């Protein structure tokens, strides 16, 4: 956790500290090249002062022919895009490519592409601002070029717009402002009154949103302009579909070094043949640059996303457990790497050379085996640790706390019984659910019952512990009011083995207790709660029972009672978009910090279920879960009728998750590079050991690597992730994941082996961490810059020469800009006062623990049309792009991003559709608060429900189904997930962003 501020450290990866341009340049007009290593002259971008002036028409040319040609040139696919820009006529309003609202920068010179760069020198941008640059034409000119038109496929690449003189822009004055900010709020030009408005006219508030970027793909502006064909820009759905088509249903064998796995969205089966399954580890690139210089040059972050407990598919083999006996697993003497397929046996099998540090070790006598003619051990296929990428070792006492075998872990359910939760019926709901839930605790494979022990605590201002020892005639409740110094009042009888009790007791004490709890507090009027003491109690309980475990805390309000960790309202919307915005995300220090440490030390994972009705400082409250491998669930204004089932599904999933406790993870690498940064719901005491109180099947740790030295193309790069943990049965184990990567001196190799989904996972997490220490504005700027930088690097080094106006994207990263744009529109990064601080903090923390699938889905929700699917087919209908344009008035769409789920109904939905889904005569009859579809016996209803249930089942979080009608007020919520469109709370459309990035790239290339 040595993150010393986002600025001090190079940005997301590889950049050297000396590159000052990243830090200071933005917004200060620093006359220094941004990206010095490109060596170009200062870019000729100038800035119209307000967004009003710059009008940009883009025509996208899909150059199939050119593409084909290029494919022959390059060894990999590229997508070639040709953008030409046009000036819009002024009347149609400004075209604003700036993706980000940042009102504070309004007075600063804006940097826009100079006319020359656009190939339209005769159309200088029109400026009305007093800050305009002297070289710019003060007058507006009508568009002189022909209207933008689609370049037909097969046409030469240099279309008419390309024919302009080469770049000869005036010297740049607004250097360092890659982000043309929006004009000052209220600037007239921001309204988008153009006739071709795509946004539904039903939302006047959209335009009035301060700082928001109204509008739509750049093409909407003027009558002379044709609408851009959105299909022409790279589509994620297309990429997904292609990959699914190509690799879906195949068996992916992990026997090749540096092999790029199928996409996370693709349905495939993994066969472990010496490298860890991509379900466990995914990398941003599978071919590392050989040298630090190369890495620096390309700016592609080198990172792995490790999900040590990822769930495997049913047809995939679970991990083998290897027992090396009393001496423990065999490890390299020097670097302590565990026995793995990368150990090279030599000397007739008597010795082996470590693949990580090259140290030569003796083979222990009991482990000796002869080598065959290939130099491979004869028992190669009998030993998982020699032939597989992932396996487990049985850990010896040396690997246990205090050299004592661990006890089985425990789950403690801690229920806030203050007035809010009683009144909402939540307590009763939980208690009722627990009765059945407890019979389904996770258990080790082959075990009949779960070894997990269970305890109960309720609390408001004081804590109530329950003794349900089976010898008792009735449960005992013990109240602890000394919240200043928390302790556990009982040992015996607090943590019990539930499975035994439920099956053996005719009238189980536990049921009786769970029946009684809601009644006991039925007439409570206590509304104050404590929080830190609750977690402390859990830690103390685990300490007393000498076990690790998980706390399930059901909490409703900010802890205001007099106790450690008391919080006060520090929500301040005025801080949004200021330097101090980061404080909204920063947890309160002090007792919370120490608490995280204590939790991790004891192996106490905290899962928080929050039921807030107002601000409750989630940044602070969720700090402990986010350091202990826990999850935070949040149900705003919880109502049993509408949110109950949703919450219970989450709870069930959470309780039944496969999980490991008291874990320490270490990532070892072969010489030449090493892990430097770790992102996740983790705690780090030093720079190498990742500590997690628990790690479940949905938690991923993103690890960034840096070069120490040059890597060799021949030996490649190896990494071994070793996770020491306690199983749910109380066994100490080591889970090993090995992965070998290629190394290359060719950047093209690297770009070819990139994985966009992993990249965006890395960027999401690093950005989410960065906003703790930096103004959001900077973070967004860096994101865009690095995106441009990576792409520019590709363009420069890997792509065949082409006109500057062409946007060339590496195939593996062609949809990367969509994700980056979407990332910048996520709640934490968007910087809008419309969003609740708690929601933003919550999402920020959630992202930190996410795996590649989760970030992918979060940043690009699935929008699935349901109105025209084949109800008889098993397959899911193909998703469409997340854009309003894809919606149809008579359609029904399902949108989900892993956290929210919407069923959108067009206003012209045919009545028979409504009838068969809702059993209602028309859309108008639909009640607003419906959260589940009625069970109707018709093929469509069955199919739709099975799709929805399937998705809910599949995702880590259960989602609440929200039904929205087109043009209804709740549609706003839905629309913010259409990530290709302009953001509801600010943020550019995909098209605009792409243009903007393109401009940036060109700036970098010149």
């Amino acid at each position: 956790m040595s993150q010393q501020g986002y600025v001090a450290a190079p940005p997301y990866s590889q950049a050297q500290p000396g590159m000052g341009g990243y830090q200071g340049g933005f917004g200060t007009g620093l006359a220094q090249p941004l990206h010095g290593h490109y060596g170009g002259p200062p870019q000729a971008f100038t800035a119209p002062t307000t967004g009003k002036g710059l009008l940009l028409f883009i025509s996208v040319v899909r150059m199939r022919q050119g593409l084909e040609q290029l494919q022959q040139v390059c060894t990999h696919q590229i997508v070639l895009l040709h953008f030409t820009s046009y000036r819009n006529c002024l009347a149609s309003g400004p075209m604003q490519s700036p993706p980000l609202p940042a009102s504070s920068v309004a007075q600063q010179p804006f940097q826009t592409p100079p006319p020359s760069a656009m190939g339209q020198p005769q159309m200088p941008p029109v400026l009305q601002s007093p800050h305009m640059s002297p070289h710019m034409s003060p007058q507006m000119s009508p568009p002189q070029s022909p209207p933008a038109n689609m370049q037909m496929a097969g046409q030469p690449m240099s279309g008419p717009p390309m024919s302009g003189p080469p770049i000869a822009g005036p010297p740049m004055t607004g250097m360092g402002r890659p982000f043309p900010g929006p004009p000052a709020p209220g600037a007239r030009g921001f309204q988008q009154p153009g006739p071709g408005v795509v946004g539904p006219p039903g939302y006047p508030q959209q335009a009035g949103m301060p700082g928001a970027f109204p509008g739509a793909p750049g093409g909407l502006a003027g009558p002379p302009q044709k609408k851009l064909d959105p299909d022409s820009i790279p589509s994620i759905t297309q990429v997904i579909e292609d990959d699914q088509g190509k690799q879906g249903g195949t068996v992916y064998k992990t026997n090749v070094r540096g092999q790029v796995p199928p996409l996370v969205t693709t349905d495939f089966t993994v066969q472990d043949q010496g490298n860890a399954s991509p379900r466990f580890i995914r990398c941003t690139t599978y071919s590392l640059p050989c040298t630090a210089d190369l890495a620096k040059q390309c700016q592609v972050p080198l990172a792995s996303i490790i999900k040590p407990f990822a769930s495997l598919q049913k047809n995939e083999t679970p991990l083998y457990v290897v027992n090396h006996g009393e001496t423990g697993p065999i490890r390299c003497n020097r670097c302590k790497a565990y026995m793995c397929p990368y150990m090279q046996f030599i000397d007739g099998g008597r010795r082996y050379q470590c693949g990580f540090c090259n140290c030569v070790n003796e083979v222990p006598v009991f482990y000796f085996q002869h080598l065959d003619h290939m130099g491979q051990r004869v028992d190669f296929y009998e030993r998982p640790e020699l032939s597989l990428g992932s396996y487990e070792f049985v850990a010896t006492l040396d690997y246990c706390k205090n050299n004592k075998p661990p006890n089985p872990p425990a789950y403690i359910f801690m229920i806030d019984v203050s007035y809010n939760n009683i009144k909402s019926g939540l307590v009763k709901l939980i208690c009722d659910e627990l009765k059945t839930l407890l019979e389904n605790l996770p258990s080790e494979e082959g075990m009949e019952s779960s070894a997990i022990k269970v305890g109960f605590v309720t609390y408001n201002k004081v804590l109530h512990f329950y003794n349900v020892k089976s010898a008792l005639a009735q449960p005992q409740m013990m109240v602890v009011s000394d919240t200043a110094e928390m302790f556990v009042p009982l040992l015996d009888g607090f943590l019990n083995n539930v499975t035994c009790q439920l099956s053996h007791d005719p009238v189980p004490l536990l049921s009786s207790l769970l029946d009684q709890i809601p009644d006991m507090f039925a007439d409570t009027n206590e509304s104050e709660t404590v929080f830190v003491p609750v977690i402390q109690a859990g830690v103390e309980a685990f300490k007393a029972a000498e076990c690790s475990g998980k706390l399930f805390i059901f909490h409703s309000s900010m802890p205001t009672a007099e106790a450690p960790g008391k919080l006060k309202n520090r929500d301040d919307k005025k801080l949004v978009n200021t330097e101090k915005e980061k404080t909204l995300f920063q947890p309160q220090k002090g007792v919370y910090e120490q608490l995280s440490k204590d939790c991790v030390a004891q192996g106490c994972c905290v899962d928080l279920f929050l039921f807030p009705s107002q601000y409750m400082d989630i940044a602070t409250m969720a700090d402990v879960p986010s350091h202990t491998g826990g999850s935070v669930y949040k149900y705003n204004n919880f109502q049993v009728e509408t949110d109950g089932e949703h919450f219970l599904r989450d709870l069930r999933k959470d309780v039944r998750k496969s999980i490991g406790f008291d874990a320490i993870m270490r990532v070892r690498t072969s010489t030449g590079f090493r892990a430097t940064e770790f992102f996740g719901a983790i705690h780090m005491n030093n720079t190498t050991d990742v500590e997690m109180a628990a790690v479940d099947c949905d938690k991923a740790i993103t690890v960034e690597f840096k070069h120490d030295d040059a890597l060799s193309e021949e030996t490649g790069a190896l990494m071994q992730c070793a996770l020491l943990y306690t199983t749910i049965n109380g066994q100490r184990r080591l889970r090993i994941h090995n992965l070998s990567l290629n190394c290359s001196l060719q950047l093209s190799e690297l770009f070819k082996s990139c994985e966009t989904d992993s990249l965006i996972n890395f960027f999401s997490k690093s950005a989410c961490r960065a906003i703790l220490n930096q103004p959001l504005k900077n973070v967004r700027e860096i994101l865009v810059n690095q995106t441009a930088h990576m792409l520019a690097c590709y363009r420069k080094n890997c792509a065949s020469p082409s006109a500057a106006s062409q946007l060339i994207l590496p195939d593996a990263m062609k949809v990367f800009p969509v994700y980056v744009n979407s990332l910048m529109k996520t709640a934490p990064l968007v910087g809008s006062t419309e969003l609740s601080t708690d929601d933003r903090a919550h999402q920020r923390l959630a992202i930190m623990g996410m795996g590649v699938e989760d970030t992918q889905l979060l940043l690009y929700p699935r929008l699935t049309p349901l109105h025209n699917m084949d109800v008889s087919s098993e397959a899911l209908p193909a998703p469409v792009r997340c854009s309003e344009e894809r919606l149809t008035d008579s359609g029904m769409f399902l949108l989900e991003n892993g956290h929210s789920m919407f069923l959108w109904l067009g206003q012209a939905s045919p009545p028979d559709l409504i009838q068969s889904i809702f059993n209602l005569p028309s859309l108008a009859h639909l009640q607003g608060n419906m959260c589940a579809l009625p069970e109707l016996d018709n093929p469509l209803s069955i199919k739709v429900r099975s799709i929805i249930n399937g998705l809910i089942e599949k995702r880590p979080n259960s989602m609440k189904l929200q039904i929205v009608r087109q043009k209804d007020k709740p549609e706003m919520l839905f629309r913010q997930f259409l990530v290709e469109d302009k953001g509801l709370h600010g943020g550019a459309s995909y098209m605009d962003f792409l243009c903007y990035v393109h401009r940036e790239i060109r700036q970098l290339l010149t």
Partner: protein
Amino acid sequence: MATYQEFIQQNEDRDGVRFSWNLWPSSRLEATRLVVPVSCLFTPLKERPDLPPVQYEPVLCSRANCKAVLNPLCQVDFRAKIWACNFCFQRNPFPPSYAGISEVNQPAELMPQFSTIEYIVQRGPTPPLIFLYVVDTCLEEEDLQALKESLQMSLSLLPPNALVGLITFGRMVQVHELSCEGIAKSYVFRGTKDLSSKQIQVGGDKGRPPQPENAGVFVFITRFLQPVHRVDMNLTDLLGELQRDPWPVPQGKRPLRSTGVALSVAVGLLEGTFPNTGARVMLFIGGPPTQGPGMVVGDELKTPIRSWHDIQKDNARHLKKATKYYEAMANRSAVNGHCIDIYACALDQTGLLEMKCLSNLTGGHIVMGDSFNTSLFKQTFQRVFSKDYNGDFRMAFGGVLEVKTSREVKVCGTIGPCVSLNAKGSCVSENEMGIGGTSQWKVCGINPSTTLALYFEVVNQHNAPVPQGGRGVIQFVTQYQHSNTQRRIRVTTIARNWADAQSQIQHIESSFDQEASAVLMARLGVFRAESEEGPDVLRWLDRQLIRLFMFHLRRSPFLQVFNNSPDESSYYRHHFVRQDLTQSLIMIQPILYSYSFHGPPEPVLLDSSSILPDRILLMDTFFQLVIYHGETIAQWRKAGYQEMAEYENFKQLLLAPLDDAQEILQTRFPMPRYIDTEHGGSQARFLLSKVNPSQTHNNLYAWGQVLRGAPILTDDVSLQVFMDHLKKLAVSSSA
């Protein structure tokens, strides 16, 4: 006129008072010359079945700083309806209700036979009694079971409207809520953290103080103290479910026992809810406090609990701190009128030395035993709830004893289970003896046998002696809460004649009450022993001497700590300073009865010469009851003669001491340790250690006499030697 003996007896029977002198020397100088001060043993609530309380309130002297109660010694002008206070001589009119007063129609308080009279105060609420059990759960299974049964049994003995509460402790302290259905609820406190009274109330939300409703009936909302009749079943179940402290005790450690915090919670709970209401905290412990405030010994078994040796060597680490802690608590409790009992049953010490003040200052009981699973504990505990002839408990609460003296005498202090109320006044002497500097004391727990020693000073100067024929008057006013919850005031007014020491020295001499004096001096001795170094006290005692009682007193565990643990010493002293005269005498000089075929049972000298083969001896030391069968008797018994019809008389002989012992066992509180032994038995040591060692291994053969009695192996001097020495000292000028 009756003999002094009769006079003394009569006075004791009527007023519960025994004075050291029954004629008082008329000046300070003469009084000091008498060595034994003018002092008395006073039993405030002495059982007086013949004394029905009057249903009205006492009439008080109207002088603000006097407030003496109208008594038979006052001069009354029946015509003017005026009475003169015999302390301050204020003339007071009778209140209107006494309008009908006349020579022939006198109120009871004016009649001479009512020198002691009890008033019932009608006003004010009558809160129920409160019993708060504070139970140690770090006990052996067997002990805990026995204790649980005793506690359950005790519920049936409590008055149905009494409030009960339960606090259990071990490593933690649990306050149990008693009225919950379906779930047993308790509040838990950390055993290591001292909580202020406020914290306990806030933290535990201990319910509200009683709200008076109409007709003086209380509705008690508090959750922790509930009427017995309401929670009887619940509490019985709760006690039945009580488990041993569940926290594991590692090898070589003592269980962690948070006695200090438990008491603090108990005291705080009562303080917050029922101040100034009669309440009894009953602490049951099976070992020493080992953690938190009030800790007496650490939990390491390898460090033994402090001994007298450690204390003398200043090696007792926790002693001062713990004592201070418990003293503070005792004072808090006393201020609120709550008394604390300690029932300590363990083979080793339990920290009574540190905790004794809890009972000593609040008038609670201390009972010490080896195990809760003994009849000694069980019956003693049962006897706490014994009832008098009216069916009322023999216990009273919140007693305040006030002493008023006529101006020639002042009160120096008292020794007994009480605390000072710091009431200064004209009758308070500057010369403190015992707890002095006040004329009022609080005795939170008081029973019919509770006896205080009060010491007075004659203040008249030698040159202005009291005129002959005058009388010194002392009035004892005891306000208390009767066990039937009534508030009562008992007033005892006594008078003694003044005598001029020069002219009437024989009279004074004959008015000397040897027994009372012995006990009074012994109390002073014990009081000093508690606060001063042992040898100094013995030296002091040697200088003030009273015949042979002192010989035994010197050897008694009240002053000698040899062979006694600090806890035992504390225990013995505790009882010594509160028992009445008879019992005190037994404690000083144990009684020895002899049973033989030679005649009816007779008391014999507490001397080794009394130990004969053909005798059965019964020794009562108050704490022990020893039946000792002489050598021959023991042989006969072993031979089984008592089973034979022809030796019926032998059987009778064997039974006689048993019957007598039974009688004692049935009345004594606490129940004495009952020992049945014989010549040569190991338990015979209890007898041998008490008797006067007139024959020891030193003089046995030197004297060349025929062996009669049993030689005692001791280096202690015999009474004979002691007396010889004493005589020598008495006549030498330096003494």
